[in-house]
């Protein structure tokens, strides 16, 4: 069982979704919750049996798919992907459990379960093609969720989401094929296995081109400025559950991929592009935060805030040291939890009033005190208050990047200011003041179903803020090996000096394209 736990994790939801077609639609919610809970339990079990002291991949599985062309189904998990998988399972679970009254609930749940398969698959995949497969496949359920259950502009938003990401990932596909070709040239064998690719040392110019190709795919997914405009539409139009999963998990695919692919495969290019990307990240942070401030729609505020936070994650990733990368991975989880919670919260009020315009509210704190409290907690987490989950990530990310550039970190650090500005302004508009609108006077506070989703998130927010070690430990172990690998592989002096060497011994067998020629 343990040998196949990842495959089970990946395909169990899909199988359950298939069987779900048979389930009667009144019982569908219970069915979905049960399946998602089992999946979550499995993911917890994975965590339980995961050996935090091993830096490499665990629970690897390999099945030949197209061996002639080097494509194999390889999955495995390490500290970097473990928690995102758990998070994906978790969010699907609470997403389904807290699903409000929607039309076609059966379709929705089946779609969500399929989505879960793709999400887990992306993070477990160790073969570039399998990764790409799940990566692309994840677009479809999301497209459906946005397009079928979304707001008035849903079709525009969903198509934009799909095509934009699709276009980016096709460029990435070209990059992957190139990478495989280089591997073929170097070794005489086709392989798409990431771990094989890790052993390949490419000349800097190749690295740069490939980095750019991969970058398009990842950057659009993240989304990085200036490729971010699909996100506000997608979030703005998506139903609550869609936004939650989009923000919590799907966006993380991009940043995760940076760490899984770009950094270890192209260490020199990573150093080469560190500053440009950092500048983009800073633009993301400040610019989108300001745009968020200008929003009238609370969901858009949260959406833009996502972009802003993703900027910090990117920055941490390109710190290229253990502190920064660990921080950025942690922040991925943190941002997942917090933005997921924020979207859920927005969903709560949307369910009641069917509007997301902040001007429609005001003074909600007195009408819905519990709601206001949880929102306040998440808001504080979002602005990165210490002892909440976000702070750990942001702190480490910025700390890490400070090693690379002081002035850029100073600029990026304004995240904590601009973030506070829009968030507090939004909170003030919604919750403070006196209740002016008649409709708002008798709004019911959060109900049990919503609390089922919100309370665990609140607990995680605080728990991991105070005691991040259970998560940070495994992440750290794996990140150390990644950084060590990068240092080992780096060719240029600049890269060698930028990427710290890890004391531990990391052996890679060197296969270089030039050697093969």
């Amino acid at each position, binding site marked *: 069982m343990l040998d196949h736990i990842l495959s089970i994790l990946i395909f169990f939801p899909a199988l359950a979704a298939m069987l779900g077609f048979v389930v009667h639609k009144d019982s569908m919610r219970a069915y979905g919750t049960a399946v998602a809970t089992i999946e979550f339990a499995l993911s917890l079990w994975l965590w339980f049996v995961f050996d935090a002291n091993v830096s490499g991949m665990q629970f690897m599985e390999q099945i030949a798919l*197209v061996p002639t062309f080097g494509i194999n189904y390889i999955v495995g998990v390490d500290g970097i992907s473990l928690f995102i998988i758990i998070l994906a399972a978790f969010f699907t679970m609470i997403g389904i459990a807290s699903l409000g009254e929607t039309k076609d609930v059966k379709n929705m749940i089946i779609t969500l379960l399929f989505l879960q398969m793709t999400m887990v698959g992306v993070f477990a995949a160790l073969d570039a093609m399998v990764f790409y*497969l799940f990566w692309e496949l994840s677009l479809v359920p999301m497209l459906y969720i946005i397009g079928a259950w979304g707001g008035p502009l849903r079709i525009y938003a969903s198509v934009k989401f799909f095509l934009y990401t699709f276009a980016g990932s096709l460029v990435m596909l070209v990059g992957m094929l190139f990478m495989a070709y280089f591997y073929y040239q170097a070794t005489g064998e086709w392989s798409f296995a990431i771990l094989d690719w890790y052993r390949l040392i490419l000349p800097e110019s190749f690295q740069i081109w490939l980095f750019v190709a991969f970058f398009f795919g990842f950057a659009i997914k993240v989304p990085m400025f200036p490729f971010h405009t699909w996100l506000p539409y997608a979030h703005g139009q998506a139903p609550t559950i869609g936004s939650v999963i989009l923000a919590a998990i799907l966006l993380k695919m991009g940043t995760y991929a940076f760490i899984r692919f770009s950094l270890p495969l192209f260490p020199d290019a990573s150093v080469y592009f560190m500053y440009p990307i950092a500048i983009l990240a800073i633009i993301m942070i400040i610019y989108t935060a300001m745009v968020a401030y200008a929003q009238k729609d609370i969901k858009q505020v949260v959406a833009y805030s996502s972009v802003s936070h993703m900027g910090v994650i990117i920055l941490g990733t390109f710190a290229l040291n253990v502190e920064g990368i660990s921080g950025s991975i942690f922040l991925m989880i943190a941002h997942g939890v917090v933005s997921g919670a924020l979207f859920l919260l927005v969903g709560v009020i949307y369910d009641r009033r069917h509007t997301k315009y902040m001007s429609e509210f005001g003074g909600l704190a007195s009408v819905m005190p519990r709601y206001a409290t949880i929102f306040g907690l998440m808001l504080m987490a979002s602005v990165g208050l210490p002892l909440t989950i976000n702070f750990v990530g942001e702190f480490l990310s910025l700390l890490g990047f400070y090693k690379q550039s002081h002035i850029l970190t100073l600029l990026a650090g304004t995240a904590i200011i601009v973030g506070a500005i829009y968030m507090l302004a939004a909170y003030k508009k919604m919750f403070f003041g006196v209740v002016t609108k008649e409709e708002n006077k008798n709004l019911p506070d959060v109900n049990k179903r919503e609390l089922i989703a919100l309370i665990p998130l609140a607990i995680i927010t605080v728990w991991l803020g105070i005691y991040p070690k259970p998560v940070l430990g495994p992440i750290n172990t794996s990140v150390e090996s990644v950084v060590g690998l990068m240092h080992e592989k780096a060719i240029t002096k600049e890269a060698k000096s930028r990427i710290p060497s890890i004391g531990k011994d990391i052996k890679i067998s060197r296969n270089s394209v030039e050697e093969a020629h």
Partner: protein
Amino acid sequence: MLSAVNVSIESLNLMTLVPMLIPIVGALLIIVIELIKSSQDKSLYVMLSLLILGIDFAFLLESAGIFEKNGTVMGVFDVMLIDGLAILSQFIIVGASMLFIPLALTHKRFHEFSYPEFFALFLFMISGFQFMVATDNLILVFVGLETASLALYTLIAMHNRDKSFEAAVKYFTMGALAAGFFSFGSMIFYALTGSVEINQIAEVLSANGYADIGFVLIGVTFLLASFGFKLSMVPFHTWTPDVYEGSSAALAGYMSIVPKIAAFIVAMRFFEFLIHSGVVWLEVILYIGVVVTMTMANVWALVQTDVKRMLAYSSISHAGFVMAAILIGTTQSNSALFLYWILFSFTNLGSFSMLWISRQKNLPAHQQSDHSYDKFAGMVKTSPVAASIMALFMLSLAGLPPFALFWGKMYMISSAITGGYTVLALIMALNSAIAGYYYLKLIVYMFMKEPVVENNGHVYVANATLPLKTIIGIAAIGTIFAFVAVNGLLELITAFVYNSGY
């Protein structure tokens, strides 16, 4: 005086003719049956055709075995050429035909299937295509092509309504022009080399070092124009959407696969050696042609309001995509062509079959064409399974993994990269993204819109019968589980293509 010719039967390798003869015999059989006892039910002919094609397929397997053992075989005075390309393409031709023919068993009656001649012509057409791919003699290519084409024009027209006549006439007229071009091009090469056999042409041309490059280019131009017509390369593509729209959906799907693979093989045989001998002009022209065909067809597909026309443009774009294989001209790219086309057959036949089963006799109210997007609006509400299958085909066409066409696309782009055509690879990738839009549009209509046209969902399966459903099921399974087969296919194709010297 002429001396008598002594030929031993063995040296003729008559076996090479068998796969082509079987459909001819079958067609004659059908005609004979009709003569003896007329007005039989169409199901008889369908099954008969299916059986004949099955036998044909078995013989193809046999020839494949022979090829694996002995390599390329020439036969009947070296007119027939059975190499890996011929065998692979015949597999596609016969296989796709086998998938097509049960589509005649619709629930509703359509005019063409009431003729036994329909099936006879169909079988003749298949043999025509088979001759086309199994030779390197331009005369036989021409005759095979015309046999197949003439039968095809008729098949289109037999649908018997205004649009199909219009389609047939358009196709026919342009086909006649293309035939003129073909013969003119062949004439130039004959003038240059004194031969109409591609091998000989290649030998002679390389022997004199392409001294008459001007003539070569003229010849290539005319041949390109005629193949361009068959392969619907821009700007020779104009017939495609109209003809697809005019003919029945099933036949349109068939047309998007079989005639094209035949033309591809001939184009591959003819252009490959030119490209390899460094005719830069051809390379440039093909490059432009491929890019323009892919892109413009995509762009036109974007603005279509009818699904069938959209699919027509999409198949133009796919053809352009595959044409890149000939431009690249490596073993990998040629293998990619076959892989792509096999996977494309499943998907495209599947999607056209989906249109076919939703075909109504009369146009729905307020609609201009049989399969307008509006017709599919809200399909998921009334027939979710059909909508899901249709969406599956669309996603596969868009190149979403792990569905069938993704593997072809991936391998093709990879071959472009390996062949050094990086920019082309990027253009191909981005074109897939553009194409994503119109495939998505259908999905959007099916899954996200409210029904515009009053219907109870029955319309989407108006034509469905068990055989049709089976075909669609096969196509769907093929599309979904392609990844299982890709490895085997790839090994086989690569071996065949490589051993044929391409």
